[in-house]
């Protein structure tokens, strides 16, 4: 990843200068350093994003957010590129729409995006992505290449996918990489953007690039400390809390029956804000708000997973735990 990535100003310092530019024919004025994405959002212009998250530095790899900048040969990622003086930006030109459609279509043709949320579903529709035209699904995918850059022969009859079994190697969260769009968020969250544990990295290359512990060892054999921060940032459900996964497997996950209750983590003096997602009077997952000034959405294993005691019945009461 790039060592230097321009970010939106978050330090609250008074901006030295402002920048005037044109977005979709409208004049805009923003503080210097503001990304095109932030400027668009301030204008109420929607730009699809998959690998961008407010609490992580942009990695600009998915290319769903591309926009057209006059004078630039290639399209430009809105999430990372600062708006420059006199830039003329178009967020819905023919080329932009084409690239967005193809990015979404290519992703949907290779990974299972069924749990990637309502926005994604809407974009697939709006931009007209048609994954089926790349052919029928190949029966199995994700045969890990023995060596980077040397893949087996290709007949082209069926389209290669990342289809592979779910990895369940611990009690707290599961990894279903057939849903992974390689947005790098989990790696960034586990690494120097939040957790500083570095349990996972991108390995392999090309279509075979994948998220892995060293030598793909099971999570309990890796450096993972089960903070769940990777799960919290994953946009596609590739990483999922086991509690949620089990309910989904039992066809019992129902967001409409869930309430979210804010509380403060009881374990230590930091006092992280927790959001308890409760279904049928049971905590089914714990998150923290992305815009929270202490946590930025990140927690530790205790706040994230240490809630079982809540479900222990008081003495004498009937134990309803599953």
């Amino acid at each position, binding site marked *: 990843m790039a*060592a230097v990535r321009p970010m939106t100003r978050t330090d609250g310092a008074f901006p030295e200068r402002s920048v005037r530019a044109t977005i979709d024919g409208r004049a805009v004025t923003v503080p210097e350093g503001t990304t095109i994405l932030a400027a668009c959002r301030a204008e109420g212009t929607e730009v699809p994003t998959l690998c961008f998250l407010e609490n992580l530095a942009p990695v600009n*790899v998915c290319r769903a957010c591309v926009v057209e900048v006059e004078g630039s040969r290639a399209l430009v990622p809105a999430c990372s590129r600062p708006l420059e003086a006199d830039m003329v930006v178009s967020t819905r030109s023919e080329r932009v729409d084409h690239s967005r459609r*193809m990015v979404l279509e290519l992703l949907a043709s290779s990974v299972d995006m069924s749990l990637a949320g309502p926005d994604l579903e809407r974009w697939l529709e709006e931009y007209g992505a048609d994954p089926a035209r790349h052919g029928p699904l190949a029966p199995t995918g994700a045969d890990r290449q023995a060596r980077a850059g040397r893949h087996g022969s290709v007949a082209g009859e069926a389209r290669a996918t990342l289809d592979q079994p779910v990895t369940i190697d611990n009690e707290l969260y599961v990894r279903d990489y057939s849903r992974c769009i390689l947005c790098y968020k989990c790696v960034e969250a586990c690494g120097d953007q939040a957790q500083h*544990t570095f349990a996972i990295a991108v390995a392999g290359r*090309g279509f*075979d690039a994948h998220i*892995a512990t060293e030598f793909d060892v099971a999570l309990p054999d890796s450096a993972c400390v089960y903070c769940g921060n990777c799960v919290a940032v994953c946009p596609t459900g590739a990483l999922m809390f086991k509690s949620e996964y089990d309910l989904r497997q039992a066809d019992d996950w129902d967001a409409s029956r869930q309430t979210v209750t804010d509380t403060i983590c009881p374990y230590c003096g930091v006092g992280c804000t927790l959001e308890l997602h409760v279904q049928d009077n049971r905590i089914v997952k714990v998150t923290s708000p992305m815009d929270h000034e202490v946590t930025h959405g990140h927690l530790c294993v205790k706040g994230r997973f240490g809630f079982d005691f809540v479900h222990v019945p008081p003495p004498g009461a009937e134990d309803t735990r599953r």
Partner: protein
Amino acid sequence: METSLSAGAADIGTAEERAAVDEILSPPPSPWVGGERSPRALHVARRDGTTLPPRSLLLPALRALESRVGVVSPGAVNYLAVRMDLPPAEIYGVAAFYALLDVGEAAPPVKVHVCDDVACQLSGAGGLIAALRERYADEGEASLDGVQWHRSPCLGQCDRGPAVLVQRAGAHAADIEVVAATREDVVRAIAAPGPSPTPPAVVPQVGDPSLVVLRHVGRVDPTDLDSYRTAGGYESLRRALQLGPEGVVDWVADAGLAGRGGAAFPTGWKWRAVANQADRTHYVVANADESEPGTFKDRVIMEEDPFAVVEALTVAGYAVGAEQGYIYIRAEYPLAAARLRHAIAAARQRGFLGDDVMGRGLRFDIDVRQGAGAYICGEETALFNSLEGRRGEPRNKPPFPTTHGLFGKPTAVNNIETLMNVLAILEFGPARFRAVGTPDAAGTRLFCLSGAVARPGLYEAPFGTRLGALIDMAGGLMPGRTLQGVLLGGAAGSFVGPTALDTPLAPADLKAIGATLGSGVVVVFDDTANLTGTVLRIARFFRDESCGQCVPCRVGTVRQEELVARLAAGRPHGTVADELRLFRDLAQVMRDASICGLGQTAANAVDSALRLGWLGG
């Protein structure tokens, strides 16, 4: 962060593995970072954080493991983690990026990489592969005698294929390049005690007085600094020191030199931008990754005129104000790397490098860093990441290398041929340099001729030379054969048909027919060539070499290969017109939305083949 060892391996490597790493990182300073544990030593407290080896030594250390024991094992990764204070997952992620590093518990001691790329397909790669399958095992399987073979992308020996690279693990083993390889040659190379001599490069114009870039080749002993100096070596650096840094930049700009690495960026402009950066740590990097299929020009220069490369990079360092230069050379060029290392050592010994260059109180030195099998590491920002010990993933631009390059510092990165032209500019002056070529493209170009010509090899000709004339220089086609087409500029370039023979090889003329010179590749296909196989090979190449970072290229190159395979087999999904529409959609998103030049050009050659009607399109 605390270094945590992987529980996936209980050990920190074998003695042999640790020795391989220590050779690069120097022995561990204390038992706390992997050294010998005696009760006494464990009583000494140290602050080892201050003596950590730089991360840029990670790739050299991984290469050392591959060459000594043939694999990067979990134990060895643990040892690296301890020595370098890096997470095992990250080390694994880096190692697993490269085609010439094996990762896992064990690997066969001998690995044979057989080029089956565009040019070698024309010179018998298919037969060689069949023979190796018969002698050893199926592709990717180890034979009983510990030999494993793989098909490989271009090895930079296209004028004398089929080419083979043999990797042998062992304490003193060296990788071996085999050219015009037969099965017996490969067997012999595997068994040979040391590196067998690679035959000298093929430069049919040797001695021609009109040569500029190749003027020393064949007249200078590449292993002897005195021979280089007798031929006028180091006169250009002397001239540079007289001109002063700005004067050098002015000359290079006046000469109209444009980069020869593919993008044709004005070199003087680039150097001025770096020289003017306020941050005083600047770097110069010679890009010797040369992995564009069909290209071998930089290898010939480095093998035959290594002192000139060293001198030219010194000039570049002087011009932009850098004290450290790097030559990043692809792993597949062991002879060129050895010649460069030898030349650097000799130059250092004689005061042409070091703390007092030519007695002028200037500090400049050069390190050679080898890649490990990745075309993408020739992209300048991927090269920086690779050199810094990270995965060779390109960075988003801007910011550009001139402001944020190697180690985040202002960096001038140039192709080897570009640098050689700088020496010529200093020797002949900008006016004489500019007098050759066309008004918008000054000087000469190196052309890598391979395929169906009588005398394949490296040629130098002025910009503007007609394609047909160039092919005639190489002896024309074989008697009785007719021309089907030419691949210009490599896999990232495009095919042209026989009508292009009259086209002058200059940027504007080529642009008019939708082609580029790229890295000077000219692969000639006569009527016996199987062009479908060639196009399939190119589609395969891009899928294999995509770094995988961005969606348009990571998935687009897969879908492109599938599509080409369907067309080649005559089994389109729907109609051929449907497939062509799908192809255009893929080509456009790759061109428009990919992060780097690999994805942006990945559809060029296929596109041109379709336009020529070669896939039933």
